[in-house]
């Protein structure tokens, strides 16, 4: 079911956690809210769940208003499934009882099916403290999904897991959610998580969504310098725009397709993997450091103009620190105009 927020605000004393925020999440969509800690994303989730009342604005789930002027639906009547950051499994109940908690009495069968969905039917009689982090996470998901909620909310669902577990579980959770056909809103501060998991994502800062779009779009065309930097390493160049391209000190960058057309002096953001290094040409930069990451390498160069340039390349040919190289935008490189 769809979720819609219109002009929602929430303040705690003088702290404005969420400010005049509007958003629509489509039915069956996996939407991620990405932002640094303290940006208000958890408050946003708690507003959706009904643990907080908005100071202004309206929230509707599946076309029914659940919060708005003169209207507030209690959390237990919202048909919301929530997966908490530390899972909040009931320590005094078995796995099966946890999953069955939100179901009418006698629906043991549905609880069992849901546990099967997350692949934990063999742990039904265990208690939460017997489970590994990944298993707890899956029980929390099963518990939220069992009552077939209209929307599933996930609060930093992978943050308390080992990095090695995270990637696997991410895929697994995505499959479970898609299997269930659930509409889901996920809140995270991890760019990789948001980019790889979400159908669409919103970048949140200081209580507002600064950008909403599909991951590829948000990554390649950040609306501003902050969003560009928050989503990953980025180079910012000054240049002169002319006819869908920007002339910068390292060459010409294609910025066509961006909404504002660029004429005159502009700033453009380019991801490190959009640049390439050539040897044999008259060098225009020197490698000052090299960060080897296995599958790829991040080089830090000093350009002849004096500025630092980041370049990310597959770890096929390695350049030594101190090597003189020629850096330029890759053939299909695209930049994004930023403020």
């Amino acid at each position, binding site marked *: 079911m769809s979720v819609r927020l219109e002009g929602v605000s929430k303040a705690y004393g003088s702290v404005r956690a969420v400010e005049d925020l509007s958003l629509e999440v489509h039915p069956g969509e996996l939407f991620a809210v990405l932002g640094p800690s303290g940006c208000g994303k958890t408050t946003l989730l708690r507003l959706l769940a009904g643990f907080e009342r908005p100071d202004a604005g309206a929230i509707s789930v599946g076309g029914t208003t659940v919060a708005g002027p003169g209207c507030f639906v209690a959390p237990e009547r919202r048909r919301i499934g*929530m997966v908490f950051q*530390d899972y*909040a499994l*009931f320590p*005094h109940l078995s796995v099966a009882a946890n999953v069955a*908690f*939100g179901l009418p009495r006698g629906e043991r069968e549905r609880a069992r099916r849901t546990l099967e969905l997350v692949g934990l039917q063999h742990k039904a009689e265990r*208690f939460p403290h017997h489970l590994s982090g990944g298993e707890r996470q899956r029980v929390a998901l099963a518990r939220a999904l069992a009552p077939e909620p209209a929307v599933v909310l996930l609060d930093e669902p992978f943050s308390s897991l080992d990095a090695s577990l995270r990637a696997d579980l991410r895929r697994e959770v995505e499959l479970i959610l898609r299997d269930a056909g659930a509409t889901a809103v996920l809140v995270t501060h991890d760019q990789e998580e948001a980019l790889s998991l979400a159908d669409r994502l919103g970048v949140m800062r200081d209580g507002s969504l600064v950008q909403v779009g599909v991951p590829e779009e948000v990554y390649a065309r950040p609306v501003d310098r902050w969003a560009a930097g928050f989503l990953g390493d980025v180079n910012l160049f000054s240049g002169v725009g002319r006819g869908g391209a920007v002339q910068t000190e390292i060459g010409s960058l294609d910025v066509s397709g961006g909404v504002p057309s660029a004429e005159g002096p502009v700033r453009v953001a380019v991801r490190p993997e959009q640049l390439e290094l050539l040897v044999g040409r008259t060098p225009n930069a020197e490698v000052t450091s090299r960060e080897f990451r296995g599958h790829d390498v991040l080089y830090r160069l000093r350009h002849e103009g004096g500025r630092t340039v980041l370049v990310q390349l597959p770890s096929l040919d390695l350049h030594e620190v101190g090597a003189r190289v020629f850096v330029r935008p890759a053939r299909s490189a695209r930049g994004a105009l930023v403020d």
Partner: protein
Amino acid sequence: MAGLASLPLAYLLIRAGTGGAEAWEVILEPRTGLVIGRTLALAAAVTVLATALGVALAWLVVRTDLPARRFWAVAAALPLVVPSYVAALALIAAIGPGAPLRGAVEALPGVERAPELFGFPGSVIALTLSTYPYVFILVGAALRRLDPALEEAARALGRSRAGVFRSVTLPLLRPSIGAGALLATLYTLSDFGVVSLMRHDVLTRVIFQQYRTLFDRDPAAVLGLVLVVLTALVLILETRARGRSDLGGGGDAAPRPPGRQPLGRWRVPALGLCAGVVLLGLVMPVVVLGLWSLRGPSAAAALAALLWPAGSSVAVATAAAALAVVAAVPVGLLSVRFPTAFSRGAERLSYGANALPGVVVALALVFFSSRYAGPLYQTIAVLLFAYVVRFLPQALAGARSALVGVNPQLEEAARGLGRGAPGAFTAVTLPLVAPGLLAGATLVFLSTLKELPVTLLLRPIGFETLATEVWSATSVSAFSRAAPPALALIVLAAPIVFRLIERTDERDARGEALGAA
């Protein structure tokens, strides 16, 4: 250490066992059955009332928008400063026979006689007022630690507020409610002062009278054993009931402060409950005792008469606290660092001793020291030994939790830097556990200060403490003579208890701050 701690029980067993058939006949007397019934009824009534009161107050203070919550959080725990027999004394002085309040009630039209205070009702009131703070403090701390996400999860899964309380909050609080209720039960079973003042014949009082009035002491030993068995039964039942509910509820500190429920029109009755309890448990005793103190001879004379007993009280309490800590460190160290069956057993034995009612410990040591350690009989040494046996677990709990918190690698690091084992212990571990040890010592000090039966039975002749002064004056109903030492006990205990309560509060507040960061 543990062997010494279990000496009283061992001796009691021997004594009762060799006492011969006629000593055991006391068990078959119909009166004994009645006394046991009374003991159980009193323990049950106090446990139920104290638990209900403690849980209700804790919930009001932690989880609702009760006005002046922080004030009530401290005030509702403060009746701890009033020793239970002092509370009983104040009750008797305020509404007992001959008290003006009672006269006023009986003067009302239609009232023949005000309800009887002595016996069961007075004992229940005084003991409930003395024991509910344990439940209140334990449950309050557990409520603050409770992860609010658990309750939110239950609500998101479709449960109403009331449903969440029943299905999530209450089960998660069960360990702390159980621990508080257990304390209340054990306290009541071992209480001697209140039931004596209220003339309620339960086991402790009967044992004491048997011992005092009859030349033959064996029946007292047998009855003492009966009390020990009752205590053991309670402990076993509690362990059974706890079962697997002890699975560690939330974490150490709640990640967020818990949500608060608006009281709405219940606000006034809630305030009334808090005020009533504090009034009855704290204000009334202080005011009544203050008024009675003023009726006595000149203030200067009263103060002078207090000096010696107060000095003795503080001296033995300090000594007992120091000894208990010295004894607790090796036991705690052994069980924390070298958890073998032996060290665990030793630890458990030391805890078990605490459940022994003071009357029983005292009686056993009287028998033992008068027979086998003649020169020690009725000396300070035996008295201090009895205090340590009785209150060792309080020091042990502090020492243990402090030792658990010290990473053994710290000591190893010190060893690696060239310190010997004892040097490493004193340079690293001791400073780190000092606060815990001090907390334990404080508890022992407080308990010794107000201890009555052991002091009465084992003190050297002519050795008076504040507690014995209160006792001897009340046994002849000389309230104006009993009031000043009783008030002195409250005044001595107040700052210590206040600090303890405040610290618990601070720790919780810190936890919340840490979680929020």
